[in-house]
């Protein structure tokens, strides 16, 4: 009996200490954000991401295919170790990711931040996007859905647009980003 009491009372103390440790860890996660905005963090709007990163020429699509919700459901931006801005747009009905845009000062960002990927690539070809050399990939994604991706470089910025739709739509989205 005394053994059970000892273990139980210890468990209560451990829960209290455990709660304090978790609270301390959460505080330590929040604290650096108060001093700097360099590392990847979530923003509520494109404007606030622009302010935090200090990047003026963020490319935002003017054309959004039907059925995709606006504004982006997720905006992530970082300044270090390199500049990157990620926008995720979801389908109004399915709430699944339908459009994913990454722009960054490093080619690494695409690999690091990409949330969706091809299951099968049908075709990869070059494309001239408003005078810029782009790479167009067409294939199938999860669930056999037709999807396409367009990558290009705009000055120092690497851009990638991934859409769960045929190629002509991804081209339209990408073109609407370049002014």
């Amino acid at each position, binding site marked *: 009996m005394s053994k059970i009491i000892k273990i139980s009372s210890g468990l209560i*103390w451990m829960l209290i200490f*455990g709660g304090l*440790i978790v609270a301390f*860890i959460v505080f*330590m*996660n929040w604290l650096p954000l108060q001093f700097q905005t360099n*590392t*990847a963090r979530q923003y509520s709007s494109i404007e606030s991401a622009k302010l935090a990163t200090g990047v003026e020429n963020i490319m935002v699509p003017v054309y959004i295919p039907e059925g995709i919700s606006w504004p982006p459901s997720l905006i992530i931006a970082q300044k*270090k170790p390199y500049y990157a801005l990620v926008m995720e747009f979801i389908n109004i009905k399915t709430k699944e990711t339908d459009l994913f845009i990454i722009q960054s000062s490093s080619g690494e960002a695409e690999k690091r931040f990409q949330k969706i990927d091809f299951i099968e690539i049908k075709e990869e070809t070059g494309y001239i996007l408003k005078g810029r050399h782009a790479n167009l990939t067409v294939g199938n994604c999860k669930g056999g859905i037709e999807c396409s991706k367009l990558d290009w470089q705009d000055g120092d910025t690497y851009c990638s647009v991934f859409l769960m739709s045929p190629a002509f739509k991804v081209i339209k989205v990408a073109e609407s980003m370049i002014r």
Partner: protein
Amino acid sequence: MYIAQNVIHSIIASLIVECAIISWKIKAPPIKQWFRILVIFLPVISFPLYQLISPHRGDPYFRLNSLLDSNRWFFLEIWGGISVLFILIVIILLTSLIFLLQELIPIIADVIRKGPESDENIVIQETDELTELKLSKAFEGLPLERNAVEIIEDNDLTLFSTTGLSPKIYVSTGLINTFNAEHLNVALAHEIAHIKRSRRPILIIAYLFRIIMFFNPVAMFEFRRLAQEEENVCDRMAVMMTGKPNILIEAVDMLRSSSEGGDSEKSKGLDSIISAVENYSHDIQLINRIEKIKNYNQEDTNGWVIPFCLTATFIVLLNYYIV
């Protein structure tokens, strides 16, 4: 990535283990040792295990929802552009250097020197009748043969043992002359405990994990605490063998008085400071040992399996969300 998470996971594990020891009022040194081993063992396997369970654990989306994202600290610039990552690298390099100079090189040097029977320790082949009488009294009730004990020519109070297939206990002439038969009896019991413990090499296993984490300052600190705890475990076993806690307290206290002011007259400047710090730290350890021996009756070695499993589970779960 592995090194950074290893260090952070060790810090968290160390915090949780300390809280568990306080929560469940764990006082028995062997039980404390098992808890401390968690700090050395779990961080070694946690990162590969977590990556195996969730390969996307390192991606930014997991990091955003994690309890602690280490990158937020590592890229934080303080003191004119120096990042926290740079400070961590310096700490890791210093810890590795300490490991090399204080642990690895001395062990290799000891192996090359081929054990304790070196030029520094001259083993006496023939002893006088009085010494033999004192030793035979000291052996009473102990599972020890006379030929397992070697006497070395040294005026300091020295006592140590070697383990392996033919373990030996080395006693200095200084110790035999200073200690009475009863003090020698408990001191030898303490060394027998070391030899017995070496057959269940908990410290060796812990040390192997500590070698893997040679860069980790928390592992270094915890391993040293584990080694200090080993002295308490052996004191406890010596008391159980001889039933003389007060004599053991006296013997440890005599070791304290012998180390007070030992080298201070010979050394000067920086040497005297280092020597004073070493003596002070040794003295603190001996005082702690005395306190532990006094409290043996209050120690409970039962009912620790459930707390141990709960603590290990809590560490594993919490560290999963720390990237």
